[in-house]
């Protein structure tokens, strides 16, 4: 039993990691309806910048994180300007292709020698890791931090989207740019803000990820990005709490499969469950099952 | 023999009874108008008849056959066609292909004929194309056959939707506000058009329309809905003077062309 609880805790940590990335992913999707495949790579850039910040330039951790967040916010805004905005009124798939291009660009460009280089870097712990023993379970300070950050991001996003004017603007932009304009919404600015926030969150996620799994390299964003996106879909893409729910489920499924069924089959089973869930809830767990009004 | 027989139809969305206890019978060759305030449930009735929504209660018979709960495409193949309140064409396809596509269930060549281009394929394709063009001709769209549907003017799109519906060889045609957004002169032409196709294709027609000019001119019988229920039926003259309808729908100064 204790063993099982420990596995659940493992799953929780993994799920929270996915949630960290999935939140930003799903927010951007909610506003621009674009699978921003570059999100995972912005996450990577964030991890690198954070690493340089506290491990190479010797900045205090909060400053390093903030720097990474600001830089990635800027990066996100630039990506949107350059690669997505020209395609805003093109078919959706065009922007998706552009996103794949941007993703590849960030990966390959980052692995050039004079950028981050192709090496796998070991990330030193910026603070000592502490383990607490709670009811026979070992909980680390990193796990607690990640938990708090996810919670913080979740609440912040919910407030932002449902309680602020900017959030309302985002929700109208999500539906119809021209109608939003006619309300006085500056669509360009709103989308820029969306990307800035999404990318800043990606950076925050990246740094925490690099602290929890202390190794970074230019292609590190692909898999977590994909898994996080899958989690967002599982929860109902575009829906903020859905991202967290989906991520937590993914984390549990993967961990429990590894632990009790077969580590080889882990991804297969995780995705099989995803497909099954979608068959019963075609728009994800929290997604509105909308009968299109004809 | 009634073409369409609806009894005690109901549909609820969450707590909302969009259609409730709705019964209607259409005889062959009739044009019946379905009118009522916005949100009365008229379009929902169409969606129920065509199978897009599954009814909460009630049955729908078409030519004696129970079609309640059949999937839309099967209902269409039985002989019910419709147009949409918000135009739904195959926008990126050509005008001609919009029409030809719906010949599909009646095409007489099989998959392998298609892959191998057998004489049967050629003959049948030629026939379908000819028939489609005839239909477009009838609706005065033939000259735009190779235009993308999205590029058509609004009125042309409305007519293309009708052409496409006719291409399914329906016995019963459901028209959902075909004259919406048209000026009185255009409405008049639409009235002519509906008369013409009714005669030529031997149709029974159920028509939703808010333009009284159209409804009163065309229909032999009107059914008025409000809050999902029928509140009145009768000839245009009767309806025009029905106080309940005046109150709920037509308004005091009902202008009727």
């Amino acid at each position, binding site marked *: 039993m204790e063993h099982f609880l420990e596995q659940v805790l493992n799953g929780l940590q993994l799920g929270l990691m996915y949630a960290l990335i999935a939140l930003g992913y799903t927010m951007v999707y909610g506003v621009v309806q674009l699978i921003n495949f570059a999100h995972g790579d912005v996450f990577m850039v964030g991890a690198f910048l954070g690493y340089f910040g506290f491990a190479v330039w010797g900045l205090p951790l909060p400053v390093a994180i903030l720097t990474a967040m600001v830089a990635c916010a800027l990066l996100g805004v630039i990506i949107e300007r350059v690669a997505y905005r020209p395609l805003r009124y093109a078919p959706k798939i065009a922007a998706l292709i552009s996103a794949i*291009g941007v993703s*590849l660009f960030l990966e390959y460009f980052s692995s050039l020698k004079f950028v981050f280089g192709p090496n796998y870097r070991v990330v030193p712990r910026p603070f000592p890791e502490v383990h607490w023993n709670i009811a026979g379970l070992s909980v680390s300070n990193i796990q607690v931090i990640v938990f708090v950050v996810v919670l913080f991001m979740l609440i912040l996003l919910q407030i932002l989207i449902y309680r602020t004017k900017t959030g309302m603007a985002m929700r109208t932009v999500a539906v119809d740019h021209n109608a939003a304009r006619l309300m006085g919404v500056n669509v360009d600015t709103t989308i820029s803000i969306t990307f800035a926030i999404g990318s800043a969150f990606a950076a925050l996620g990246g740094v925490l990820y690099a602290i929890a799994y202390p190794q970074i390299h230019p292609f590190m964003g692909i898999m977590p990005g994909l898994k996080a996106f899958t989690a967002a879909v599982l929860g109902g893409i575009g829906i903020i709490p859905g991202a967290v729910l989906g991520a937590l489920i993914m984390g549990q499924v993967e961990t429990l499969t590894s632990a009790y069924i077969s580590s080889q089959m882990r991804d297969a089973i995780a995705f099989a469950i995803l497909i099954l869930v979608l068959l019963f809830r075609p728009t994800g767990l929290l997604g509105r099952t909308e009968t299109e009004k004809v | 023999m009634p073409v369409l027989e609806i009894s005690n139809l109901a549909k609820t969305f969450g707590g909302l009874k969009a259609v409730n206890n709705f019964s209607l019978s259409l005889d062959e060759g009739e044009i019946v108008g379905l009118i009522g305030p916005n949100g009365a449930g008229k379009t929902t009735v169409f969606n129920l008849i065509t199978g897009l929504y599954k009814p909460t209660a009630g049955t729908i018979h078409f030519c004696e056959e129970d079609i309640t709960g059949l999937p839309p495409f099967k209902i269409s193949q039985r002989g019910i066609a419709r147009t949409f309140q918000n135009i739904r064409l195959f926008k990126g396809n050509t005008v001609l292909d919009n029409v030809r596509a719906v010949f599909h269930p009646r095409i007489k060549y099989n998959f392998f004929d298609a892959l191998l281009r057998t004489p049967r394929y050629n003959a049948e394709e030629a026939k379908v*194309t000819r028939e489609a063009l005839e239909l477009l001709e009838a609706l005065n769209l033939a000259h735009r056959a190779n235009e993308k549907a999205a590029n058509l003017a609004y009125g042309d799109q409305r007519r293309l939707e009708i052409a496409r519906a006719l291409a399914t060889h329906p016995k019963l045609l459901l028209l959902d506000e075909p004259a919406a957004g048209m000026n009185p002169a255009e409405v008049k032409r639409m009235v002519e058009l509906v008369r013409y196709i009714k005669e030529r294709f031997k149709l029974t027609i159920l028509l939703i329309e808010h333009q009284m000019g159209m409804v009163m001119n065309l229909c032999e019988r009107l059914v008025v809905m409000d809050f999902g229920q029928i509140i009145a039926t009768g000839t245009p003259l009767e309806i025009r003077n029905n106080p309940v309808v005046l109150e709920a729908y037509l308004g005091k100064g009902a202008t009727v062309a």
Partner: protein
Amino acid sequence: MKLSRNTFFYFAGAVFFFALVKAMQFSGMLTPYWQLVLDQALIIVIGALGLSIIYGFTGQFSLGHAAFYGLGAYTAGALDKVYGNGNMLFFFLSLLTGAAVAGLVALLIGLPILRLRSDYLGIATLGFGIIVRVGMENGNKLFPVLGGATGMSGTPQVAHFDLIFILTLIVILLVRNFIFSTYGRACTSIREDEIAADVMGIDTTRYKVMAFVLGCALAGLAGGIYAHRYPFLHPASFDFLKSFDFLLIVVLGGLGSMTGTIVTAVGWVFLLEVLRVVLGQNFIDWRGVIYALILVVSIIVRPQGLFSGKELRLLIPDHLKMLTGKEHTHAGSGN
């Protein structure tokens, strides 16, 4: 069955191209390297046409195409390796089996998941691709010949340009015939408006599944040819990132255009190799960067793709040409 005029010209063009390639081979202008690249391009053409049917023409977003490519490759490769003896008959039989297996799997998975819409369908197919990859990595536990994660070598290398070219020609012709038939029109109407298609009497589930099965079978066929042209099959060669390659070929070519798919597939394969040559040894690590930039720039320059909805005249049936101008449009931007 009489040969229609444009089919005749299609074959005439094909013969001309074939003769050209032969002449270049003979004169040594076409080195075995470029020959191999050309063969690869044709293989990708076949696979991409499959996705073109699924996504370009029927509007079903699939991110799992490479899985079916892999299924075909492994099936055909293993069959021919075990039972074949370099015999042509076996080559074709194994190809057909590979395509059939890919198609059958597509049928089984397509029936349930094609109910999903757009991005949800995309992620479900992507997930299926990952499941298939795990299957490939563990396939040796059922059939040792598959090699599992260590890959499978020893497939007979009997595919060569002549055969691949003829197969490609046939596939293009069949896909054309499919698209310009009532089945193709059923597919494009589903792409444009599924609800309207349904209400107008088209069994949407059936044609979505049909398009998916056909498209995946083509991917399987392409995979089978790959297995007979490239000596080593490995699960990594068929993972989800490869599905993106097919997707971007189809989109950059222009949705709803076979011509676009064919041209872009060839262009894409050559681009990667030409970049190698152009960049030389000293700038080789810029290859990925430049490739990514080309991708972004080309989609921004032509968001609707190269040929969106347009076809080369050669591919249009005669009886439609009389109605049309120079180019025939049968499809939209399909967003």
